[in-house]
């Protein structure tokens, strides 16, 4: 257990160093500032006092950036190791492929979470600077967002072991963003289709990652109040179960992969 803890620590540190030294986060923050600063100074028709659109835009950016970071981090866990041949000395060390996979996944999630926490700190600071206050549901929204990031990293990690980097990033983004916007509508779409297509759509609805479960932006922006505790637990359980299944599949793929 001690050995595994040390291995995980090393892998977490590696992911952190790589993510924060790549400067991606700083480029994203600059992009966010370039968008948000002019927006926050706008006074539509000379009327002042609107703030929800700023919160919504800021949260949309936080979501977009976190997805970018999560997919990128998940994607970079194994393919670069194969390309640079560092997978050999790594697997020659006293670590099994399964442990390596889990350790790397934990590292990637921890690094992505650190970036997400950084984005939320900036979001909170921007709200405070505008003299705003926070709804009680903010902690819930953050918890669900963290769970989403964990899920996105796992999807990207599995994809990285199956297809090329560009294909993985495109497919993962397509699935997660597609489900984010249209996931809850899939049963409606299935209604108007022929039985075979309807079955496909319903299957996608059943097994694709429901990223929309984790989105509390509207609840936060419009102050709907906190989600019921049971629902929160259900969403977190869904995320954990999904991550578990995806990582299990990734383990099977990695163990079958020839090095």
């Amino acid at each position: 257990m001690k050995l595994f803890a040390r291995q995980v620590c090393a892998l977490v540190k590696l992911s952190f160093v790589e993510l924060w030294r790549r400067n991606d986060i700083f480029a994203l923050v600059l992009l966010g500032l370039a968008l948000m600063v002019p927006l926050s100074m706008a006074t539509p028709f000379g009327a002042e006092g609107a703030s929800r659109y700023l919160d919504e835009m800021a949260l949309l950016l936080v979501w977009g950036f976190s997805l970018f970071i999560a997919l990128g981090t998940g994607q970079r866990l194994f393919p670069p190791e194969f390309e640079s041949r560092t997978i050999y000395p790594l697997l020659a060390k006293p670590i099994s492929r399964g442990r390596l996979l889990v350790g790397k996944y934990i590292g990637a999630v921890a690094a992505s979470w650190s970036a997400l926490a950084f984005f939320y700190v900036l979001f909170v600071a921007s709200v405070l600077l505008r003299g705003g206050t926070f709804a009680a549901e903010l902690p819930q929204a953050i918890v669900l967002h963290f769970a989403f990031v964990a899920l996105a990293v796992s999807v990207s990690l599995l994809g990285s072991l199956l297809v090329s980097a560009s294909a993985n990033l495109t497919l993962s983004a397509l699935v997660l963003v597609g489900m984010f916007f249209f996931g809850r509508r899939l049963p409606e779409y299935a209604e108007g289709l022929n039985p075979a297509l309807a079955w496909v759509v319903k299957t996608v609805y059943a097994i694709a990652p429901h990223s929309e479960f984790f989105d509390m932006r509207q609840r936060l922006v419009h102050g709907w109040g906190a989600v019921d505790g049971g629902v929160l637990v259900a969403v977190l359980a869904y995320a954990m179960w999904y991550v578990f299944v995806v990582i299990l599949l990734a383990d099977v793929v990695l163990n079958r992969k020839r090095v």
Partner: protein
Amino acid sequence: MSECSDIVQLEGVTRAFAGTKAVDGLSLKLKAGEVMGFLGTNGAGKTTTIKMMLGLLAPTSGTVKVLGGDPSDPHVRAHIGYMPEVATYYPYLNARELLAFYGGICGLDAKTVRLRADSLLESVGLADAAKRPLKTYSKGMLQRAGIAQALLGDPDLLVLDEPFTGLDPLARIHFRELLRGLKERGKTIFFSSHELGETELLCDRVAIMKKGHCVYQGPVKDIAGDGATNLERLFLKTLEEAK
């Protein structure tokens, strides 16, 4: 460490890829404290053999035992140090961080890693560049960083794949001395190489591979006489005869 005196024991090992045998019926033994050179042309099956010795590949048939156990067992690998042919190590880390990372993977505590990293970086000549990101390293420097990571866990068996590639003459001499020092400390070393001169200077025994078959195994002293050309002659002759 295993009580068995054969550190590496390969018996009738065959590894096939899509019907093609990369290694065919290889039997090889390496005793404790021995230095063995593993020679062969490109595609002879050297790297596949090394991968099987490290547990990265399972043999199609035959048995591979390292330090008395199965190399796919992480506990066995804890006693093996491996340096790949040319690896581009994590570009965002510096050499010290690289060793800290591999130390963590080996399960070493931070203090031990720090102490070993200092002495290893010194011995491979990277002490001055220890804080520079690896992406600024030359090929030879990366090779030296690779040697340092292989030695980090204080392994009983050192497996090196083309260790002299990319090293300048001074670094070669330095590295040769390093390996001699390890040998004197009783470490078992197995390395593949195209550098026949270095092999002859370092090894107790050599094995020559051709198209997956081991065509020669024997002590270097049997062929040594008037310098590096002997091994070269043997190598060429063996390959010629194996046709």
